[in-house]
């Protein structure tokens, strides 16, 4: 394993301290409301974390599968929300479910699945966009995920840190090294 990838994995799994996440009490309250049967709270949770889940899944699976898998992530989270011990850590928990679902998808993937991308009803991305995304996906997982959250979902480094539970320093390193590798692979000169 290359040193850069190893470093990426190390920084990827370095979690933040709980005190560093500001809105943890709001997240906990949201979770408590959902557990009490408040469906509007679930909609709020979805609205707040859908870009995070979408980005994490998009970094790993074909575009046409992303929406379905993201929905599955939220449904799975809803079913097992009572098992969440630290209710203020719902973001990192959702991120973990999303990563697991993406891994599960690749375990059961059929060869023809990649061919369905052009049937999407969404705005059709350009060939350049597809190439960039494919290049990001080829990066080490931690770099690719962080870059998708930053470049595709438009989150700032601080937002990525807060929602994924990663330390801000780790996110900064992932962004910096990932961007450097992306530039190299795309042939962009600084």
């Amino acid at each position, binding site marked *: 394993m290359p040193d850069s990838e190893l470093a990426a994995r190390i920084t990827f799994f370095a979690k933040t301290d709980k005190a560093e996440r500001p809105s943890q009490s709001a997240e906990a309250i949201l979770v408590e409301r959902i557990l009490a*049967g408040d*469906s509007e709270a*679930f*909609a709020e*949770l*979805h*609205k707040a974390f*859908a*870009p995070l889940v*979408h*980005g994490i899944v*998009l970094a790993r699976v074909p*575009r046409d599968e992303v*929406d379905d898998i993201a*929905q599955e992530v*939220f*449904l799975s989270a*809803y*079913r097992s929300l009572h098992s969440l011990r630290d209710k203020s850590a719902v973001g990192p928990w959702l991120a973990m479910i999303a990563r697991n679902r993406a891994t599960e998808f690749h375990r059961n993937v059929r060869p023809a699945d990649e061919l369905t991308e052009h049937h999407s009803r*969404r*705005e*059709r*991305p*350009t060939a*350049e*966009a597809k190439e*960039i*995304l494919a290049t990001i996906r080829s990066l080490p997982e931690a770099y690719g995920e962080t870059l998708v959250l*930053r*470049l*595709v*979902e*438009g989150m*700032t*480094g*601080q937002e990525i840190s807060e929602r994924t539970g990663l330390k801000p320093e780790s996110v*900064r390193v992932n*962004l*910096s090294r990932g*961007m450097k590798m*992306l*530039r190299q692979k795309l042939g*962009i000169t*600084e």
Partner: protein
Amino acid sequence: MKTDEYLWDKTGSDTEIERLEGALAAFRYKASDAPALPVESNLAKAYRAWSIPRFAFASAMAASFALLLVSIGLWMQPSTITTERRPELAASVQPAIDIAVPKPPATMPAKAVTTKRQTVKRSFTTWKRGTPTIQNNTTARLVERGKTSPVKLSKEELYAYNQLMLALEITGSKLRLVRDRVEVEKDPTGR
């Protein structure tokens, strides 16, 4: 030289990153409704609504079973039965039938009859309705030894006595059936 500030918090400017962001915008998450909550949520509510009466029913069943066990336990262990006789009733009736009962000891109250219930090995081959009771057997033996004196009962008392014996026999037979059933279930081989 480029800094990572735009990459970190979008402050400043970085044309190359802005170009990448623009190209990748087609992949960005489009706001959509939250997924419909699963049917299980309704089922969970129904389960919660049913759980309280179900708990009450289970508690009632457990209490009934515990009461049954206590009743069987009390029945199977020897006990002392003390019967107080009403003096005015005893004085108002004429003695009609003599039944030999043991003489009470001198220290006991004169108007109280205390009998010790004995535990005897019972078997269905020898037991049948109408046979003398244990107390009667004991009384007969005591009479033979000359340690008893006859107690005279009126018709009403005799009738009440027979009714009581009949009720006790019925209750005893029911409890024996329960006990044998329990023993069979504990050891189906009968060993």
